[in-house]
C-alpha cells in the first residue's frame, strides 16, 4: 500500500503524519486513523488527550495532484 501524508490540524496546532493509506480511503477511515495515531503518541506535535470522535466535524481535503496527500482540517465556513 502506498504511503500517504496526512496533514492534521487540531485546535490551532498542525502536524504531518505518514502512514500507508490508499488514495481512495474514505473520510471516516482517515479521521479514525488520525484519532488513533494521535492517541497512540505517533503524532508528538499534537496533544494525546483528545476526545472520542475529535475529528467528526473536520473536513478531509483531497488534491488532484500526484501526491498521496490528505489534509484534515476544521471547517472554514466564514469569510
Amino acid at each position: 500500500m502506498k504511503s500517504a501524508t496526512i496533514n492534521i490540524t487540531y485546535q490551532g496546532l498542525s502536524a504531518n503524519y505518514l502512514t500507508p493509506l490508499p488514495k481512495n480511503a474514505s473520510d471516516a477511515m482517515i479521521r479514525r486513523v488520525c484519532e488513533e495515531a494521535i492517541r497512540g503518541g505517533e503524532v508528538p506535535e499534537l496533544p494525546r488527550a483528545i476526545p472520542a470522535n475529535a475529528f467528526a466535524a473536520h473536513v478531509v481535503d483531497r488534491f488532484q495532484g500526484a501526491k498521496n496527500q490528505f489534509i484534515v482540517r476544521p471547517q472554514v465556513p466564514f469569510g
Partner: protein
Amino acid sequence: MKITICGGGALGSHVLYLSRSLSNARFGVIDNDRVETKNLAAQWFVKPMLGKNKATALKLQMANFFGCAIDASPVRLSKVNMQELLGSTDLVVDCFDNGASRQLIQDFVRETSTPCVHAGLAADGTFGAVRWDRDFVIDHEPVEGQATCEGGAFLPLIVQASVSLVEAIRTFQTERSETNWNIRPGRTEKLET
C-alpha cells in the same frame, strides 16, 4: 484581468485593500450587506461608512484613500444575476460567509470554466484555508446566524489569510499557477499539492 471579489467582509475587504497595487487588475466587489458597528473591529471599514452598503463603502474608500476605481455591486448574488455579475470576470475570489452562496459560485465557475479561488475561516479563529476550486470542499456554517469571526481578536488571522489569498491571486495572475494555503495563528503554509 478582471477580478471579482464575492463578499466584502473580513476577508474580502482586506483582500481588496492589500491587492490594490497588483498591476493589470480591475477589481469588482459584490456584497448586499451593510457596515455595522461590530464590523469595524475586524473588517476594513472606517467609521463614516457605518450604515452604507459594504460594496459601495469599499468603492468609496478605495477612491478616497488610494485613487483606485473599482466596480461595486451592492446586490445579493443569485442565479438570476450571476451571468451579469460574473460573466465577464477572469477570476472569481470567493470570500462569502455562507455555504449557499459559495455553492452558487462553485456551480457557476464549474459550468463556465471560470478560474476561482475560495477562502474561509474557522468559527473559533484557529484556522483559515485558501483553496482553488478544483480542490475546494464547501463547509456550511454549523448554526445559521452564529458569530463569524467578528471580534478584533481574530484580526491577525484574518489579515494572515488575506495576505495568503492575495499571494494566490498574484501567482495566478503572473504565473498561472494555483497555490493552496493553510493558515494558523502565526503560521502560514503553502501546500505542495
